[in-house]
């Protein structure tokens, strides 16, 4: 019943008007004379208010503001205990948070939606394009980002992929996206020997309406070749993206980030420079592209020191929060190297930026040891999860500027 507060145990229902009355009853204990102390705008109705916020968010570019609008829609829907509106708002939030650099928030909203769906399977449409199909689409995003978190064990990830796989199978969808995520996990865990088989398994499955767009598929195929340390094949695979023949919300920005350092170390300076020139504009203020930001900072440290010191503060707030830990690793490496560069240039005291929202501005000199420590700790956590030392080895060599760049490290 929209617009009502229903107590769980007693079954008593308190209407929204009674809720107001309750608030007024307890007003004796607080000051209501302050300007604008407000009550929920029940007049509009939860559905309308939440949907208005959802639409407002959809009109915004991916980033913090869009996430804020959709979080607000969730809050309004929950305030009114409107599960349908809450479902819609969370679906909007999953997309905004996933594409806007806050995958944890996307996960939280997704867990709620899937739980609601399983508890009330008849309440949500099962048709093509309905609530549940959308959830199945979003499940890909959740598994993709979850695999990039060191706290998620191999077995837990396998459980997630099994659950996703079962749901796809039950609805008769192709397992292509599931296999693609297994490939992604292999790449992210630096299980290089598993990548060729995972690519073949992925491409063996046919496409259907839940398959990723062609641009994303091409981007991942290219990433897989980079993970297998084959730059010529990777370039060949990514040609449609470099020639601007395919694109989507994240591609080719992610692709440019993946290729920048391998191209540079292969000596293709012209192409690397072209990508480096385009990456900042493509990233904008969306921390979804934290990895591209990290590769850019590393590249600038090596090729354009002055610009590196300008770019590092632009992205420093993304290093310790938001996105996935694996994606942030690259930026931490970039900022450590930029900080050392700043010290060499006599600018170690210059501001690196605010690393955490509650902290004051940090200088390059202050930031460097902290980011170095964070990067090493994170790398060790990944190695512990992965069961080998490849992430730690790669991160430490990159921190010293002696590593060879492939993907993801």
């Amino acid at each position, binding site marked *: 019943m929209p617009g009502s507060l229903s107590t769980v145990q007693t079954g008593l229902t308190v209407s929204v008007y009674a*809720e107001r009355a309750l608030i007024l009853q307890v007003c004796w204990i607080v000051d209501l004379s*302050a300007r604008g102390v*407000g009550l929920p705008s029940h007049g509009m109705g939860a559905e309308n208010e939440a949907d208005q916020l959802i639409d407002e968010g959809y009109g915004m570019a991916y980033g913090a*503001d869009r996430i804020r609008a959709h979080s*607000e829609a969730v809050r309004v829907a929950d305030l009114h*205990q409107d599960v349908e509106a809450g479902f819609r708002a969370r679906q909007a939030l999953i997309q905004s948070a996933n594409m806007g650099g806050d995958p944890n928030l996307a996960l939280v909203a997704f867990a*709620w939606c899937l739980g609601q769906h399983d508890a009330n399977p008849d309440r949500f449409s099962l048709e093509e394009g309905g609530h549940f199909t959308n959830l199945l689409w979003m499940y890909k995003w959740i598994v993709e980002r979850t695999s990039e978190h060191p706290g998620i064990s191999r077995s837990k990830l396998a459980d997630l992929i099994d659950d996703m796989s079962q749901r796809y199978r039950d609805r008769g969808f192709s397992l292509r996206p599931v296999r693609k995520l297994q490939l992604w996990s292999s790449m992210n865990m630096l299980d290089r020997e598993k990548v060729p088989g995972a690519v073949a398994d992925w491409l063996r499955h046919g496409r259907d309406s839940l398959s990723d767009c062609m641009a994303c598929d091409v981007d991942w195929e290219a990433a897989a070749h980079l993970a297998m340390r084959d730059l010529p094949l990777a370039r060949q695979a990514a040609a449609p993206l470099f020639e601007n023949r395919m694109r989507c919300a994240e591609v080719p920005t992610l692709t440019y980030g993946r290729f920048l350092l391998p191209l540079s170390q292969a000596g293709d300076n012209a192409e690397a420079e072209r990508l480096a020139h385009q990456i900042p504009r493509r990233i904008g203020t969306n921390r979804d592209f934290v990895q591209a930001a990290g590769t850019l900072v590393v590249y600038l440290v090596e090729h354009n020191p002055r610009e590196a010191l300008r770019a590092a503060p632009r992205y420093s707030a993304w290093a310790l929060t938001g996105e996935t830990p694996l994606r942030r690793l690259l930026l931490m490496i970039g900022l450590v190297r930029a900080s050392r560069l700043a010290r060499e240039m006599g600018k170690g005291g210059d501001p690196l930026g605010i690393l955490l929202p509650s902290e004051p501005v940090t200088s390059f000199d202050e930031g460097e040891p902290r980011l170095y420590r964070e990067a090493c700790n994170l790398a060790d956590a990944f190695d512990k999860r992965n069961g080998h030392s490849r992430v730690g080895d790669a991160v430490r060599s990159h921190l010293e500027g002696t590593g060879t760049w492939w993907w993801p490290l």
Partner: protein
Amino acid sequence: MSERDPFKVDLRGIVDVFSNHLYSSPTVFVRELLQNAIDAITARHAVEPSHGGEISIRLVGDGAGATLSFEDDGIGLNEADVHVFLSTIGQSSKRDSSTDFLGQFGIGILSCFVVSDEVTLVTRKLGSSKSLRWIGHSDGTYELASLEASAPIGTAVYLRPKIESAPLFNAAKVIDTARHFGGLLPVRITFTHEGRREEFGGEPLPWQGIDLKSDSGLSQVLGYGEALFGDRMMAAIPIKSEAADATGVAFLLSEPRSVHVPQNHRAYLRRMLVSDSLTGLTPDWAYFVRCVVNVNDLRPTAGRESFYEDEKLEKFREEVGQIVRAWLEETGRRDPDLMAQFIRIHYMALKALATQDPEFYELFVRWLPFEGTRGMIPLGDYLDCGRELHYVSDHDAYRQLAGVARALGIELIDGGFSYDTQLLSLAQELIGREISPLDDNFLMQRLADPTAEESAIAGDFVADAQRVLGAFRAQPILKGFEPVTVPALLSQSDSVAYGRQVRASREVALPLFIDVLDAVSPPETESLPLLVFNVRNELVRALCGKLGEKRELAIQLLYLHALMLAHQPLSTSELELLQKATLQLLMQGLGTARRD
């Protein structure tokens, strides 16, 4: 079969391509003929610098029976020219010197076959006594003959319409089309039809030599822009580009527009209209301007209705961007009223764009108004008042904290409006002044700790509150602050809001996902909301006394009430408590009344 054969071209097929794919309108034949005429005059001018040149358009009759002619006194063609340039598709006399000529594709004359089955051309080349007549047919054949009578130097083209093109051979249509395409050409053009005679062209560009800093000059150019685009304009910015050898005007629209809808611009190539609905001439962020420009050095597409997306166009776009930026900077310094008006009109779109483009934001960051403790005023005014400046990210927090901020002598901005929190955070970096969020740390540091006397009054209140609120994962703090009428503040940072969402999800999530949530967001790392009690408030002081169960009930209700005032959804356990505590309160109240 090893011999190489030339391609065979079907002229009707080519004309079909022109009609249906290359040109957006059949009227482009007017532009193509004007262009050929201008190029011929330019070529003659190179040989005879004193030659001014003239174009004459004549319409005899009207509609299906009409004959339309375009005559110029340009350099003319000889027999060899005719074979090569008129009768070989793709051949152009102007390709090697494209900076001087408008045409360069060798397909201009063919556009006439879109509207006419037969094109007659009479010409005599400068320095030649031989006059020629060329008749081209739409079936791909042509005839060339020498004329006994001597034609004037130059070229005349005669057209009779196809049946379906008859409406184009109308005096009003011809003169409108000719003015549309050639209105800014440097050569005088005369149109005659049955005693009607009109002249246009040969004038300076409408913005040429006009001082936009003078009121009269600005008013003249604004009037021109408004008539041209049909929009009201608030300012005109002169454009001069080296990359494209261009001049023009960027008009600032005085109505709000969407960032997502690119503006249509009007562009001329060497004073011939290319398009009146061209996009991409300005950077994406300059969505609030419409431009009219005359370029001499950009590469047109084959249909001549837009420009190639190449490095030169990119540089031109950058130059226009720099000019608009410079204007905004200058206006911010010299004409604050105009700048304020500009921001007022384009407020929402400017904010949306500023979050994506900090460099752009920097141009007007001080001028952008924000709602706060001083009302809706520009950020610069907040900064100039010299007081500490903070913001909160939602309206509820603002409502709760504005009074406290005033009492502390600081300025507080309500960042709950679209984009404002991010803009304020960016502003700090751009301006280099501290504009920080008002968060838990602030409350802990800036609200005064209880004095010794107040601590004595409080007694075990905080410990009791800790016990009561622990069940709801909230942290009580005792402070003393103004206004004393406020008994408690609930601090709800973003991380606290996130924690509430995690808990709401845990209540319904599948076991598999509860594990995943715990791994990604461990409960022990969850930020707790602070409930800051005001020891100077009369109610709180009363609660510090010996109240037994009533104190617990009051603390619970204060917490729940703070949550509701913050418009937070209540969890299952909080709803249960609300139910229980309210009923208990009522019972106690009623019980007291009965006893009384």
